[in-house]
């Protein structure tokens, strides 16, 4: 039982990087913009966060640096695709390639650095409960923030006026424009917010989750986050579910290997991807419903007034 609690704990922490990044990407996609640069933004944020942590010994400053790095890259992307109407997919890919190379380049001198001892976190009072304590309440605060972020985002999108406007911009920028909303500025804000969250995810990866810097350490997590938003049909709760499912199956496959389950480990390595896709497709198996959820103008450029 205790083993299961630890597996659950590892699942939560493994899913958090994906959850934060995917929720960020959800915001830009709800505004109609697809940013394929997630991987690059996360990598640049990872080195920015790690370097900040090395020099300041302050993890929260490191997260801020990661968020800033992600936001700056996203802003550059936003200016290109929103004002200059470049192709969103090509520009996003360029951003990703750039970020991969750039982070490796600036990170050269940090590959031998190590961070001071990582603090342990426990929720006072709850951490000592049997089972749920070790499973849920001995996590880095960022893990709980991811859940709070999901709840906040769901409220924002479906209960607040600003969220309604954001969705309108993603559904029909022409109508939003006609109603007098500054479509391009709203889209830019959404893109920057998404980039900042990808940045936080990248910094969490290099500062807390695997506290070191190596080239390409996100190892495709940005792409997985992108896929998650689509499979989750742009619903915050499902994005979170998908992220934890992915984290859970990843940890489970290691666990099964450790238990000596006789399955090729290469097959097990593939399992998280498969399981996540299957489950998310199952819960949204009505194609009409997916289309109804998909922001209608996603990926399409918008020219106000021609």
């Amino acid at each position, binding site marked *: 039982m205790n083993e299961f609690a630890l597996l659950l704990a590892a699942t939560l922490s493994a899913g958090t990087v994906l959850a934060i990044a995917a929720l960020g990407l959800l915001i830009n996609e709800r505004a109609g913009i697809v940013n394929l640069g997630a991987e690059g933004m996360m990598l640049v944020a990872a080195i920015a966060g790690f370097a900040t942590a090395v020099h300041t010994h302050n993890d929260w400053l490191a997260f801020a640096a990661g968020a800033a790095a992600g936001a700056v890259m996203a802003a550059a992307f936003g200016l290109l695709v929103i004002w200059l109407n*470049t192709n969103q997919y090509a*520009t996003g890919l*360029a951003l990703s390639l750039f970020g991969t190379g750039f982070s490796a380049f600036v990170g050269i001198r940090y590959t031998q650095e190590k961070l001071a001892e*990582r603090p342990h976190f426990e929720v006072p009072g709850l951490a000592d409960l049997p089972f749920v304590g070790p499973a849920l309440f001995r996590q880095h605060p960022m893990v709980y923030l991811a859940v709070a972020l999901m709840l906040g985002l769901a409220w924002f999108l479906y209960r607040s006026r600003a969220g309604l406007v954001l969705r309108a911009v993603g559904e029909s920028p022409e109508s939003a424009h006609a109603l007098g909303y500054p479509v391009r500025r709203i889209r830019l804000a959404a893109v920057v917010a998404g980039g900042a969250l990808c940045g936080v995810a990248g910094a969490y990866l290099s500062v807390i989750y*695997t506290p*070191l810097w190596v080239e390409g350490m*996100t190892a495709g997590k940005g792409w997985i986050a992108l896929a998650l938003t689509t499979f989750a049909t742009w619903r915050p709760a499902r994005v979170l579910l998908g992220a934890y499912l992915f984290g859970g199956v990843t940890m489970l496959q290691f666990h099964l*290997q450790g238990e000596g*389950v006789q399955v090729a*480990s290469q097959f097990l390595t593939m399992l998280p991807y498969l399981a996540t896709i299957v489950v998310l497709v199952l819960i949204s198996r009505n194609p009409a419903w997916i289309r109804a959820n998909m922001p209608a103008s996603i990926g399409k450029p918008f020219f106000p007034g021609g």
Partner: protein
Amino acid sequence: MTLLAKRALLKLSGGAALAAAAALVGCGKKEEAPAAPAAAPASVAASAAVAKPEPLKVAFAYVGPVGDAGWTFAHDNARKAVQAEFGDRIVTTFVENVPESADAERVMRDLVGQGNKLIFGTTFGYMEPMLKVAADSKDVKFEHATGYKAAENMRTYDSRTYEGAYMAGVIAGRMTKSNVLGVVGSIPIPEVIRNINSFTLGAQSVNPKVRTKVVWVNKWFDPPKEGEGAASLISGGADVLFQNTDSSAVLQKAEEKGKFAFGWDSDMSKFGPKAHLASAVINWTPYYKKAIDDALTGSWATGSQWWGVKEGAIDIVSVSDTVPADAKAQVEKVKAGLKDGSFVIWKGPIVGQDGKEALAKDAVADDKFLGGINFYVKGVDGKIPSGK
């Protein structure tokens, strides 16, 4: 009206950004040792009256970044050491992050083209590409680490890393409270399986009750994954971890969870001061010295070289103060025995996982046996994922 103009401008700037990105990637990947003198013109070879012999150009191809603190780092330390040792008689170059793919062949051809006469390929996956390039470049000598195929101008070399694994096992067997050890394995090939077995044998030599759990990450270098593998071993009850992957992630995860672990390839004590029990290190310097010396003196010959504690290529260092004195003494005894040849790790009886005797009593495994190990010894849980 301005739309088309904007688009044209954009295409241009997009292209420029891509080019810049590509340039940055490029400079991240490749570095040249400083003070490399310009290659002398070919005619020099013909003129007999050259005052000073041309330095031997030696190149190294690495699979990871030199900053990985593990495998590649250890190779690069040796490169620096031989450069210092031979001074201006040699010029060393290295290329890092060379993938074990078609790119490896391209990189090696490039190294040949740059005039290197001795080329070291430091990972198993370069074997086939190196063979191809070696066949086309007869005047260049190739050295391939951890492979089993040689050619007239291509020699293989390796380290008996399992000796370090065994010594780490002796410490692990003494330090475990749960009697469950965990290993994060990279790629299920004989070299790695041999290390897992040797680690287990070492632990069993002082503690017959230990069991070893193994998880495979199917990568040499993927720190987040290595850390996840380590975490799952810990949640499965392992309290001393060992890894055959290239980063310090496993050690750091053990530090975070209050368990023990080892450094591998190079001294990793600084990455987990409390968790670190010892580092099983490879010192490639003695071999690189010999190889370069062979090339310089013209005595280079193909074959295969496998160096261990005896030749000073393998050691266990920075043993933690938490390890009891008698365990330390035990390790020293093993080390001394390996050095003078009085102790052999792979000596029967050794029983496989299936309960059958893999090595009969008093039989000593030869290098061919060691090179093809594809079974777990008794005490290792699970199954090797090769499908065989």
